């Protein structure tokens, strides 16, 4: 039986839905059942975007009847095995889905909300965001993923695939690297660079 929930959060335009799609397709490659939900918001830009990715493989020999083994599309509170956030404040905003075994992988590159720009609210300092996340789970991993992508590829297009590499190294995903790379090859343009991005994520995870 496999029961693994991933929540991805970020801001419109960062690629949250693409990242979720890669993780979902890779699970189909592995023969898992895939459920999930995307909250896109009404706006094209700047708003909060989330993707729920839920992997299931039920065991017919289980004592609970199969017809009661149902997976909804939205992760319940305290149930995410992995939270990937492309923006640190958005990691914290979704911390209610964490438990003490959850793994958090978050970008440290911040994007200020309109209210902060206008001086109507304060953006918490990064140290404090990390400190608060650690009260939900000790397994908090922070990386400046924007900088990693810029320094290595001269663009921000590889942020997503670096995230997948980080998750593959840190989060005990029930999907193999091969399944992930097969999907990256068929779905994203420029396989060689994306593969390097994936490997970069894995090596950064081990270094950091």
């Amino acid at each position, binding site marked *: 039986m496999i029961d693994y929930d991933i929540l991805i959060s970020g801001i419109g335009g960062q690629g949250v839905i693409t990242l979720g799609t890669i993780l979902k397709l890779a699970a189909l490659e592995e023969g898992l059942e*895939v459920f999930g939900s995307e909250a896109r918001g009404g706006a094209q830009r700047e708003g909060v975007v989330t993707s729920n990715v839920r992997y299931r493989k039920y065991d017919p020999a289980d004592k609970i009847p199969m017809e009661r083994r149902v997976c909804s599309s939205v992760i319940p509170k305290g149930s995410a095995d992995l939270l990937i956030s492309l923006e640190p404040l958005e990691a914290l905003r979704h911390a209610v889905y964490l438990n003490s075994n959850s793994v958090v992988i978050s970008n440290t590159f911040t994007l200020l*909300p309109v209210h902060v720009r206008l001086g109507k609210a304060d953006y918490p300092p990064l140290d404090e965001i990390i400190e608060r996340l650690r009260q939900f789970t000790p397994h908090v991993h922070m990386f400046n993923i924007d900088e990693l992508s810029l320094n290595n590829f001269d663009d921000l297009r590889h942020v997503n695939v670096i995230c997948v590499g980080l998750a593959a190294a840190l989060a005990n995903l029930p999907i193999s690297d091969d399944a992930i790379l097969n999907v990256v090859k068929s779905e994203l343009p420029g396989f060689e660079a994306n593969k390097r991005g994936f490997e970069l994520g894995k090596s950064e995870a081990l270094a950091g």
Partner: protein
Amino acid sequence: MFLKTISSGKEGDIILCMGNEAVARGGLEAGLSFLSTYPGTPASEIGEVFVSLKDEFPHIYAEFSINEHVAAHGAIGASWAGVRSMLTMKHVGMNVAAEPLHFLGYTGVGKGLVIIVGSDPGATCSTSEQDDRWYSLHTHIPILEPSNIQEAKNFTVMAFDLSERFNMPFIINTPTRLCHNIGSLRLGAMPAEPPAPGKFTANPSRYVNLFAGSVANHARNLDAIEKLREAVPTLGLNRIIPGSAKVGIISSSINYLYAMEALDLLGLHDVPVMKIEMSYPLNADYVARFVAPLETVYIVEELEGFLEFQIKSLLYDKGLRTDIRGKSLFPATGELNCDVVIDALSQELGKPRPRAVEEAEEKAAELLTDLPPRIGAFCAGCPHRATVYSLVKATGRDCVFAGDIGCYTLSSLPPFEAYDWVTCMNCGLATGQAMCFVGEDRPVVAYVGDSTFFHSGLPALINAALNGSDVLLVIMDNQWVAMTGHQTTPTTGVDLNDNRLPKIELPGLLRSLGVKYVRTINPYKVRDTIATMKDALERKGLRVIISRGECALQQDRRSRRHPVDYEEYYEIEPSRCQRCDECYLEFACPAIRERQENGDKIYYIEDSLCTRCGACADICLNSAINRIELRRYKASGGAI
């Protein structure tokens, strides 16, 4: 997103797709020939699938109609002419389509007619979260409620068969959390042959509704619904998951999944559950058999108590007085989810919530209550931002802002907050044009996008012209239905592949309707725009300004296909910048950002976001924003 597999996938293939795409696949498997829709989130992608498959399935006609009223009539026409047809829209589209839909029960269908309604609990992409299911109590159109992506496809196929068997349209109600969800789908078989072309057969006793004939059709409509109601147990719809407990659950749609998962997490594996798949009409005997042995039944449904209302009435007639609890426990507003169901059932049944939920909530109450909100904003380079900025400057806010529905609704949020109301399509001009007649002496400025204007704004404009209303209308013509994913409008003119499209010339149209003051402006020329707006504000009568600037996302996409032979960019010269905040706070383009440099805070333009619209350079009072042009090596001329 996954178009290839939706159209080319074979029976038995498991693919990943969105709920809307699963519905579209259902239409393909059912052999539909016609689709009409007005784009509306969360249901927009269904129409997009068919429009983009035109070459692959030349026998399928699909259109983005001018509004839902026309779209509904189109789908009815196709069905009467003998082909399977589909009508899709968002929940509030039902209000616009309501008139033709109220006649469908009287007339019946020709070939199968299936109506997809994307509902929006939580109003995540809408101005209301109305529960459209109530319509069926007076339109008498049956409703199917799929709970997941697989059922969204399967029910669509089934609905076409049922529509023909019972000679009535069928509605499939899909909430945002199903329309937009991405998950796995097992494909069914596609038809071996394309369907036969249509031919209309006159049927005056059904289609011509007048006097006694109309009364006879009303009776026929009520009779047909009763026949369907009786047939419910034989249709293979609705399901019972047995259990030995004295309490039970009735649920439908995605709420069934929330209820089942909540029962699992609470360890309540003996609670019987009835899954309603057709929520109108319900069969009294079927419901009563499930309810009779139980002491209490919880009805888990999102939005209002549509099932609860019907079930209580049916059980009353059966003499059953079982305790039925629905909206007294589950909120009638906002989205439902597993957490809400866990909370309610745990309290009702005295079962403790899972430890992880308790802990997460305790910590969240302590650590997550003071986070800054994050709201949507206009994209970098959006022509609407420039237009609204100019409107605020030209009016000094001493006016009535009659807003409308589209991307520009974002101007109701900070920093602009230039919106006095937003309700339904064309609420701006239609409401605003009346105010001058009752003594409102401030200027009334209505603004609307091109698609919303063509949807239902023309009658309001003609009304304002004929009655001599004193109102300024700004039509923000960005040439696309941008907010729902860039469907075409009557002013699109050319698509992303440079194909010419038929288009309407707005200035000529407006003049022919009797508008004497028509000006067209380029919103990125901010100073000129403000001057034109001030001129218009000084005059009386009906005035229209057309603000013409293509959606920046589309312009950007096209420019990537046609690289120009020079490059330009904009930069803020720190030594000239006075940090007056005009570009950063008042205009608030997301490409203008702040950073630390040598201990000072400076504004800069993030080049990867900038679309080179140039509006900020026009705004800057200190000439600190410069356009830099780099000539590239030209192969033809050879000059550098």
